[in-house]
């Protein structure tokens, strides 16, 4: 007979003020305060924060991480190769989100937990495709967990983008694409490269990251850092982070035409409220169908949802798929829309 007490195992991962924590491995996952040992899913600012003593990440992500955090002790691990911390076997698996992004698998011999971090299931020429990992407990993101979020194919989006680009060049306006500088910008540049010999000019924030991508042999379209001296309308597409809207950076290219590449652009009202004329639906997160597919493929019997529409996802899993599911509230502000 197994006593009630021993059947109730301690969870492998718990929530602490510093973030998700695995006591047995003495490691935090994407902590938002400095800790001794941090396992990092990817280099976006809301997942990778400076100040911890020791970092682990997937091989290929260490360059971006160093750019983001400065000089720290960073230990990269090849995808799929496990290492031990305490009694826990840990391994990184491709998440398909940005270069070097990973899901983290933790196995203490009694149960297997997987933390997806941010991920997508659509192919992206700048990073390794997502690999399903089976587990007992899955902690998944839920940024876009609503059926309205269905991503169009990249072929369709790129056709639209090229049409918009040409249209405004013909009308002597500079096309400016606003998007997140880590990941989204390079993904779009790689998609351009696969389809054309068009070239772009990029904001400094994007340029610095491009260099890191090219070091990792990601093929981007021809690009150039937008320089102060270039004045007037550009026939190149300008790629810049959203912060430049309304700043002096854009002045040199006047008149400009702004577009935004983001999953949020799926809803017309969102685009119109953000004073952006054109929206392209490109997201580095999983859409509704991908989220459901991923949960099913994981074969997890328990699913926690973090970031975004957690309420909708957990209710759907509980009521319609019969998978026990709970929201994992994060302590503060991690749901920021910065990298969507």
């Amino acid at each position, binding site marked *: 007979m197994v006593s009630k007490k021993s059947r109730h195992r301690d969870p492998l991962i718990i929530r602490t003020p510093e973030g998700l924590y695995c006591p047995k491995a003495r490691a935090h996952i994407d902590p938002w305060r400095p800790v001794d040992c941090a396992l990092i899913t990817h280099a976006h600012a809301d997942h990778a924060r400076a100040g911890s003593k020791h970092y682990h990440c997937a091989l290929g992500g260490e360059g971006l991480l160093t750019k983001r955090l400065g000089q720290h002790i960073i230990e990269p691990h090849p995808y799929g190769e496990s290492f031990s911390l305490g009694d826990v076997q840990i391994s990184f698996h491709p998440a398909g989100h940005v270069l070097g992004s990973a899901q983290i698998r933790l196995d203490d011999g009694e149960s297997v937990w997987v933390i997806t971090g941010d991920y997508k299931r659509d192919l992206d020429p700048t990073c390794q495709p997502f690999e399903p990992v089976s587990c007992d407990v899955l902690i998944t993101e839920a940024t876009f967990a*609503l*059926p*309205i979020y*269905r991503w*169009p*194919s990249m072929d*369709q989006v790129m*056709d639209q983008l090229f049409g*918009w680009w040409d249209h405004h060049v013909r009308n002597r306006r500079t096309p400016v694409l606003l998007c997140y500088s880590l990941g989204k910008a390079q993904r779009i540049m790689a998609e351009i490269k696969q389809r054309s010999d068009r070239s772009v000019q990029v904001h400094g924030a994007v340029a610095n990251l491009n260099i890191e991508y090219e070091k990792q042999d990601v093929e981007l379209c021809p690009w150039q850092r937008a320089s102060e001296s270039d004045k007037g309308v550009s026939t190149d597409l300008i790629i810049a*982070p*959203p*912060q430049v*809207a*309304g*700043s*002096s950076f854009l*002045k040199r290219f006047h008149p400009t035409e702004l577009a935004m590449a983001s999953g*949020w652009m*799926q*809803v*017309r*009202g969102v685009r119109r*409220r*953000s*004073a952006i*004329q*054109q929206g392209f639906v490109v997201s580095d997160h999983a859409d509704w169908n991908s989220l459901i597919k991923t949960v099913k493929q994981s074969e997890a019997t328990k699913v926690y949802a973090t970031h975004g*529409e957690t309420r*909708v996802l957990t*209710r*759907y899993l509980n009521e*319609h798929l019969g998978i026990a599911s709970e929201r994992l509230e994060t302590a503060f*502000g991690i*749901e*920021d*829309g*910065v990298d969507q």
Partner: protein
Amino acid sequence: MNFIQLFQMLDTNQSTNAKRSALVEFIETAHPLESALAIEALTGRRERRQLKPSLLKQAAYQAFADESWLFDECYAAVGDLSETLAILLADQEAVSQTEDPVLAQWQACQRELSKKEPDALTSELLGLLSVMSRDEAFLFLKLSSGGFRVGVSKGLVHDAIARAIDMDRAVIEERMMGAFIPDEDWLNRLKEPVTQNELDARPLPFLLANPLSESDVLELDPTGVAVEYKWDGIRAQLIKTHETIRLWSRGDQDITEQFPDIIEAATTLPSQLILDGEILAGSPEQLQTFNELQTRLNRKRITQNLLKTNPAFFKAYDLLRFDGEDMRTRPLTVRKDTLSQLNVIQSQVIYPASHQDIQTMRLTARAEGAEGVMIKDRQSTYVGGRKTGHWWKWKLDPMTADCVLIYAQAGHGRRASLHSDYTLACWNQNNELVPVAKAYSGLTDAELKTIDQWIRKHTLQKFGPVRQVEAVQVFEIGFEGIARSTRHKSGIALRFPRILRWRQDVGPQDADHLSHFETLMSDSNAV
């Protein structure tokens, strides 16, 4: 071009010029029946609802079967029923065709559908949507359920028509006034030769006033000017010909249909007349604020009820045509004398003997509901544009500014969970936003909540508890005074700033420049 492409172009362009050229191109190139039906929809003439929103919802519930709550969640996130259905039920990979006409076919579809029983209707509708592209589905549903809006005014449509067929804008307005028959012949009818009455119904160029400060006023000869209150309404010309009465705003808009009460009151006036004046909300005894007028302008249909709750009247202050004679070359005093003999509500005018008289008039302006005084040269003729030496405006210090939200921070106490402390910015000479004020109050809880959610989704960076947000949201702030400050990047410090309202009607580019504060300072310091 067809209607779908026109919609895409109107929807993805913010500038009026771009919208206008899209409309012109559409009218020139579309099949005449497509353009006729499009014009009908764009000018709000097709409000007849073929499909009730409840039926659209029923179709969605049918598609979602036992997951109807999930549809409700989607609808809440999108905020628009037609768009929600279009996203969820249309063919995601289908590309809209942008050449062949669609509207006549859609109209036939709608008619067929509306004849069916609800259950058959919803099934048929779902089948129809599943083969449409997203834009097709969205537009089809919008047009069918009577909620079509695309952010172009009637005036802009009429302007585009005038340009497309090279006709006078006012003539087109006149001809679009009555019933519109959406058939293939619509453009030919509009192209018919212009009549004398149509020529008479055109507005004349408005004379605009130059701003004055107190020191400027002291340099004027008080015995050479006339003074009246400056009203905060809609500047307009009331034009009466032998056949029609029209009301034109300074923004080149024919707003006749918006003000049936003013038109009614003008029926007793002699014809061959043009009055220049101001449309004001309320009654001469009881003025209402400009917001109440805005309501009138924004409504597509002016109901009897609206006329009661939001009455309006016309206050005349100049006479441009009288009994068919052009009065504009006559001096102001002659025009005013003739005007005073007409039975219309008119602006009180004084002929000051001293600067003190002008001051006194200005000091009573606020109590009268006016926003300052107008000073006009007694001998001036009426010429179009902002001519110097004719009319001046001397406004009360408004002490308000439109600013852009750039940083937000959580509040205290009851509002600790909301980002309610705002840092607001204005534009400097280099087109950069520089902070001018921190403000904490003045919004309703509902507004705060909405803005809080927006802030969380549009954070660019976080510095501890402070979030830098996208420069999008504009707020009107009020304040008690301005002082120069070397500590602030803007060079100024505002006294007791508070938020007056959330300006959802304008974008960040419409916010004030720092020069606005300079002007306010020179106004108040001159005393």
